[in-house]
């Protein structure tokens, strides 16, 4: 106790540790990038793109849920906003280049996110979840009613078009690398956001909101910004998806989709960066494998079983459990 601690030494130790952590992060990022670059040579690219779109969606959701502590039950609305907007624009304005269509979809989702955020962030816990759910249901209702969405049938035959008017995206491999680039960009952005000065405030709000208020933070503004970023990324995921699959459908807007993204995130590991990616990969795969195999009539009950098992047996998710294991055994 009487031992004196020199702030400079401590500071140095802290910086060292930061550097070590950064190195680890870089390495992990590197591995991820390499894996994804090589993947289409082993796995069907459209399937990979599906995984990437959902992974982006889950990463976006996790920014809000895992890092800000806000459980949105309406994120499907942004996915749908992105996919319908992009789908509509690309189908109806043939002059539009693909990336502009995607940007427009993202922009609409962003604005919608701002609307949701303003209406919901003052509420807490379950109420927050329920307001977002209700708003998303209204969006769903709008999409069912509106003429341009094609109602139940959805939008079909959305052209993939040309990137920057030059690169033809009809080719699956080209499309894949475009989607991958966007995904990685967003993933790194989120990685940055959660460690940024802003991310620190989000973390503090998640852990102890009244205290953050008493330190002079207008927490609602922070929540709104986090929400908007999350919505924008979710919208981007939707936009990409509509280009990849060349369709937009009501499934994107259904509350089951909002539930599914929660499952993905949880299964992968809430509040971890890689978790949602792993979770999305897992869920998309499982659904696909099951619906092909002899158990195809049993997809729902099996998914149900996975829900139950996850919650009971590994609540911190795949990545979370691995982290725990590593921390316990290798530190």
């Amino acid at each position, binding site marked *: 106790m009487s031992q004196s601690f020199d702030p400079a030494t401590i500071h140095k130790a802290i910086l060292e540790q930061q550097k070590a952590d950064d190195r680890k992060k870089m390495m992990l990022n590197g591995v991820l990038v390499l894996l994804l670059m090589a993947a289409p040579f082993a796995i069907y690219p459209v399937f990979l793109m599906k995984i990437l779109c959902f992974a982006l969606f889950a990463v976006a959701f996790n920014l809000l849920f895992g890092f800000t502590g806000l459980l949105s039950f309406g994120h499907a609305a942004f996915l749908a906003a992105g996919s319908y907007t992009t789908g509509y624009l690309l189908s109806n304005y043939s002059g539009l280049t693909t990336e502009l269509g995607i940007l427009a979809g993202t922009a609409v989702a962003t604005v919608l996110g701002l609307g949701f955020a303003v209406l919901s962030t003052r509420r807490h816990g379950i109420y927050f979840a329920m307001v977002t759910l209700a708003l998303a249901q209204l969006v769903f209702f709008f999409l069912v009613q509106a003429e341009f969405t094609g109602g139940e*049938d959805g939008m079909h035959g959305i052209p993939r078009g040309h990137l920057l008017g030059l690169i033809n995206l009809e080719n699956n491999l080209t499309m894949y690398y475009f989607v991958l680039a966007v995904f990685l960009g967003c993933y790194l952005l989120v990685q940055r956001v959660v460690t940024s000065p802003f991310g620190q405030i989000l973390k503090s709000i998640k852990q102890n909101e009244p205290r953050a208020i008493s330190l002079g933070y207008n927490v609602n503004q922070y929540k709104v910004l986090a929400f908007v970023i999350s919505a924008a990324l979710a919208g981007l995921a939707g936009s990409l998806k509509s280009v990849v699959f060349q369709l937009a*459908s009501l499934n*994107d807007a259904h509350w089951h989709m909002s539930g599914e993204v929660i499952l993905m995130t949880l299964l992968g590991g809430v509040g971890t960066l890689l978790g949602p990616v792993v979770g999305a990969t897992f869920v998309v795969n499982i659904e696909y494998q099951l*619906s092909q195999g002899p158990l*195809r009539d049993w*997809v729902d009950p099996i998914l149900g079983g996975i829900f139950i098992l996850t919650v009971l047996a590994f609540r911190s998710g795949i990545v979370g459990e691995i982290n725990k294991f590593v921390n316990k055994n290798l530190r």
Partner: protein
Amino acid sequence: AISNDTVKIGYLADMSGTYRDLAGPNGLKAMEMAIADFGGKVKGAKIEVVSADDRNSADVASSTVRRWIENENVDLVAGLVASSVSIAVSDILEENDKLGIVSGSAASSITNEHCTPNHIHYVYDTYPLANGTANAVVKEGGKSWFILTADYAFGHALEGDVTRVVEENGGEVIGTLRHPFPTPDFSSFILQAQASGADVVALANAGADTTNAINTASEFGVTQSGQTLAALLLFLTDVHALGVEAAQGIQLTTGWYWDMNDETRAWSDRFMEQTGVRPTMVHAGIYSSTLQYLEAVEATDSDDAQTVRKQMMETPINDMFATNGKIREDGRMVHDMYLAEVKTPDESENEWDLYKIVRTIPGDEAYRPLSESKCPLVSSK
């Protein structure tokens, strides 16, 4: 020649959701029956079946079909129930020049504005359903109509078709009411239908909505108060679920009924042995279309989509499902439809003894004439 020495058929349908009973796992059984009846091989080539649950999602369906085509060399995609799925899938088929046979979908747009040279719509669509039923009911004196419409594309289309037929026959639609999809409780709507005083209350919806509406109508005594109930899209499974008590007297149009003749009965008996239930028109259609497809493959010794489709269009269809059916250039398989009436409890001898066939509607009269078609494939335009 037959690619890879295999004819590979992908069966894609809703296996677990709302439309499960319509086609679903039993549809796969019907397809397997057809393959077995055909002999299990075409021209020495294997016939393989892969199947998947589309989960009623265009996303799932399209990624499955892409994968089937690109990685597994699937030649034919069959089943196809939800219209959103059928439309999405036919786009992909066209892109890759593979063949699809839609058996479960109702939307007439599938061979109209959404027609492609790569698919066939086999069993029925909303046009003859509306046509057949509305025609018959108006002719029996049901002049003023009140339509309960499921509020989405399919319902709207059906409503449009009915309105046209009713008005053409000198009737009048005095009210329409669009209800959300799905609606668990119809009492409010039935009450409004009763209050309208219309002769006929028509249900332009499907599945659980229709059965719910019929149940509620019977509970609120719609027919007792002198109104006629007309269900525009009602499957055998729906009527079975409702029971003749609630459904008796309802008129409906169907593409096929298991108890029409010895041939249909014989096939249905075999089907029931395997599945425990009587087949719907979709099950029968899947059986028939698979057979027709395989015969075309055999005749042309090819599994190329265009070759087979052309052959199928040139061959009249005569089997237990259809008499003199023909596939038009827009992909519509045109065959006779039947106006049926649900039996009364006294008439019905067992749980599947549900319909009496009132009238046969010749195919050309039933389906949308090519002259009205919006399909760009139609040469006469």
